[in-house]
C-alpha cells in the first residue's frame, strides 16, 4: 500500500519522523535538524496553501542561492503539492526571466541574498507574481515600488500552523522543471515526473547503501538536476547534506576533511581542478566511502588519482541527461580491470540501471550491430514527461523507433559497446552540443544570441580549449571587417549564463567553407590552435 502513494517528498517526511533530531542540512555555517528543516518547509507550504491563487501550472519557482531558504523552499513546494522550478540568481536576469515566463508559474520564493536582484528581475516581467520572502520581516519598500505584485514576508509565515498531509498530486505530476540549453536560442524546460524520480531513488539509495550516518556533499546548483540526487538521496535515509559554498568548491580539500564527508558527488572538472591544485594526493580523503562523478566525461587518470586519494571509496562514473532523470547508467571503477576498458583515456559510462534499457541506433533509428558505434537511445521508468509546453521538440526527441512499442529518448550521444566487459563507452556528440563544466551547452544557442546582438549573420561558436569529453569554454568567430566587439560582448554576457559566455571573439573577413558550402568549423577550430 505504501508504494502506491510514495512521492519525492515522502523520504524526507519519513526521515523527519524517525530522525527528528539528526542534522539534515549544513549550509552557510548553519545546522538544521530534520525537525527544524521540516518546520521551515511546512511554514512555507502553509503560506503557499493560504495565498495560492491557482495559475493552473502546479508549479512554484525558487529564486535563491544555495541557502536555508532554498532548501526549505524546495521541500515546502513539494509538501504543498507543487513541482519546483529552480531559477539561479548567478545567471543573468534575462535568463531567469525567460525561465520564469516559460514555466508559466506565478509564485516565486526568494531568499535574502537574491532579494538584491529582485528589482531587476521584476523590471523585465509583466505577469503578476506572488513573491514569498521568508528572510525579510519588512517588504514595504518593495511593495511600494511594485504595486502589481503581492509580497509575503516572515510575518505572513506562522510557525506550527501546518500539518503535513498527503499531497494531492499523482505519480505523473511534475516533481521539478529544469531548463537546459536549446539550440534555437531559448532554453528548454524538462518536465520530470514524481514517478521518474521515485524510480531513480529506488535504484540508487540501496545501491549506495546510504544510512543515517552518512554525510553527503552538496556541490550542484539547484538549476543542475544532479542537485536533486544530493537532496533526496541524502534525506531518504536520514543522512546529513553538507553544502559547499562556491568558494569551498574552488579548493574543497578542507571542506571534505573538516565536514567529515562520507560521500562525494561532483562533476569531473572539480576533481581535475583539485589535481591541479595539488589536493589529490594519496591518502588525503580516507573518510570517503563513496565517490560519484557525473555530468561530463571522466578521464581515466583523474579516476585513478582519486582512487589513491580516497583509498576507502567506491568510485562510480554515472551518466544521464536531464531528460532521463538525473542518471541512468553507472560504471564502477576497478583498479585491475578498468584501465583496459577505457577508450580515448575516458572511463566507460557502464551499464543501464536495472529498470532502464539502452539501444544503439543509426540515423534511421535502426539498431546497429553489436560493437558498432551508434546514437544512444534509452527507455524505461526514468524517461521524463518531455519538454514543457513544446510538443514539437518533445516529439523529435522522445520517439518510438521502428519495430519498438515503447518511447525512447534520443540522447544525441555517440556510444559503443566495448570489446571487453560489455560496458558502454562514450565517444562524443552527434551534434553541436558540448559540455562545459558539466553543463550542457548548445553551440547553436550561443550563436543565435551572438547573431541577434551583433546583427552579423556569420557567427560560429567553437568549444575551446578542448579537454577530454568537452571544452573549457567557448570562443566566437564573427564574419565581419570591423565591428565594436565590446558592445556585443557586454550584451551577450548579460543574456547567457556564465559558463556559456564566450571567452574570446575573433574577427575574420571571410569564413572558410567546406565542400558543402557550409562554414568549415574544423578549419576555424584549427585557427585557434595556432
Amino acid at each position: 500500500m505504501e508504494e502506491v502513494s510514495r512521492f519525492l517528498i515522502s523520504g524526507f517526511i519519513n526521515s523527519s519522523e524517525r530522525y527528528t533530531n539528526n542534522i539534515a542540512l549544513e549550509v552557510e555555517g548553519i545546522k538544521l535538524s530534520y525537525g527544524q528543516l521540516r518546520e521551515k518547509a511546512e511554514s512555507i507550504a502553509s503560506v503557499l496553501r493560504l495565498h495560492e491563487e491557482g495559475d493552473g501550472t502546479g508549479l512554484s519557482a525558487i529564486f535563491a542561492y544555495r541557502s536555508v531558504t532554498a532548501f526549505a523552499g524546495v521541500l515546502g513546494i513539494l509538501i504543498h503539492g507543487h513541482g519546483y522550478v529552480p531559477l539561479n540568481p548567478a545567471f543573468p536576469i534575462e535568463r531567469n526571466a525567460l525561465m520564469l515566463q516559460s514555466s508559466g508559474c506565478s509564485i516565486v520564493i526568494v531568499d535574502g541574498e537574491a532579494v538584491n536582484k529582485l528589482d531587476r528581475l521584476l523590471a523585465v516581467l509583466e505577469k503578476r507574481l506572488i513573491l514569498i520572502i521568508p528572510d525579510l520581516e519588512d517588504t514595504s519598500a518593495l511593495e511600494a515600488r511594485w504595486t502589481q505584485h503581492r509580497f509575503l514576508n516572515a510575518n505572513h509565515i506562522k510557525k506550527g500552523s501546518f500539518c503535513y498531509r498527503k499531497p494531492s498530486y499523482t505519480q505523473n505530476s511534475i516533481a521539478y522543471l529544469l531548463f537546459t540549453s536549446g539550440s534555437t536560442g531559448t532554453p528548454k524546460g524538462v518536465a520530470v515526473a514524481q514517478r521518474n524520480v521515485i524510480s531513480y531513488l529506488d535504484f540508487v539509495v540501496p545501491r549506495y547503501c546510504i544510512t543515517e550516518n552518512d554525510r553527503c556533499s552538496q556541490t550542484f546548483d539547484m538549476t543542475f538536476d544532479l542537485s536533486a540526487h544530493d537532496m533526496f538521496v541524502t534525506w531518504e535515509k536520514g543522512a546529513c547534506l553538507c553544502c559547499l559554498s562556491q568558494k569551498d568548491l574552488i579548493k574543497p580539500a578542507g571542506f571534505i576533511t573538516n565536514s567529515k564527508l562520507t560521500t562525494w558527488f561532483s562533476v569531473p572538472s572539480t576533481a581535475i581542478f583539485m589535481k591541479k591544485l595539488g589536493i589529490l594526493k594519496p591518502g588525503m580523503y580516507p573518510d570517503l566511502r563513496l565517490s560519484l562523478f557525473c555530468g561530463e566525461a571522466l578521464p581515466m587518470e583523474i579516476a585513478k588519482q582519486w582512487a589513491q586519494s580516497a583509498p576507502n571509496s567506491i568510485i562510480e562514473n554515472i551518466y544521464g541527461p536531464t531528460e532521463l532523470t538525473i542518471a541512468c547508467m553507472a560504471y564502477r571503477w576497478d583498479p585491475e580491470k578498468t584501465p583496459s576498458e577505457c577508450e580515448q583515456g575516458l572511463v566507460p559510462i557502464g551499464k543501464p540501471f536495472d529498470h532502464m534499457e539502452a539501444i544503439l541506433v543509426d540515423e534511421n533509428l535502426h539498431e546497429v550491430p553489436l560493437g558498432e558505434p551508434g546514437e544512444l537511445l534509452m527507455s524505461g521508468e526514468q524517461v521524463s514527461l518531455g519538454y514543457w509546453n513544446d510538443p514539437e521538440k518533445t516529439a523529435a526527441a522522445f520517439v518510438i523507433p521502428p519495430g519498438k512499442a515503447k518511447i525512447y529518448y534520443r540522447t544525441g550521444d555517440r556510444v559503443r559497446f566495448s570489446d571487453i566487459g560489455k560496458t558502454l563507452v562514450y565517444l562524443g556528440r552527434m551534434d553541436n552540443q558540448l559540455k562545459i563544466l558539466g553543463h550542457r551547452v548548445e553551440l547553436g544557442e550561443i550563436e543565435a544570441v551572438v547573431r541577434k546582438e551583433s546583427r552579423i549573420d556569420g557567427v560560429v561558436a567553437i568549444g575551446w580549449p578542448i579537454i577530454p569529453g568537452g571544452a573549457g569554454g567557448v570562443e566566437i568567430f564573427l564574419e565581419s571587417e570591423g565591428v565594436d566587439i565590446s558592445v556585443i560582448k557586454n550584451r551577450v554576457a548579460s543574456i547567457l549564463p556564465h559558463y556559456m559566455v564566450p571567452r574570446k571573439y575573433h574577427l575574420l573577413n571571410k569564413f572558410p567553407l567546406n565542400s558543402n558550402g557550409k562554414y568549415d568549423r574544423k578549419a576555424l577550430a584549427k585557427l585557434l590552435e595556432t
Partner: protein
Amino acid sequence: MASISQVEVKDFLVDYLLKIAQEKSIEIKTIDDDFDMFAVGLIDSLGMLEVITALEDKFSVELDMASLDAELLTVVGPLSSYVASYVNKQNQEAKNTY
C-alpha cells in the same frame, strides 16, 4: 636563477587581473593585498586554474597549492607571497641537487 620577490609576483598578478577585469567589463579601482579575486567575480574555479597556469608559465615552475589555505588562495597578497616562496624553494632545491 635569482630569487623572486613577493612584489614581482604581485605585479604580474595585478596586470593579469586588470586584463581579465577589462575583458569581463568589471570595474576595479585598485588591487591591494587584501583583494579577493573570487569575491568580486573576476574568477571562478576554471579562472583560478588559469591564474595558476599563467603564474607557472611566467615563473617557469610547476606549482603545488596544497598548503595554501582555501580562504587565502584567491587573495592577491597571500597568493603572491606563497608563490614567491614556493618558487624560491624550488630553485634552491634544484641548485642543491647539482
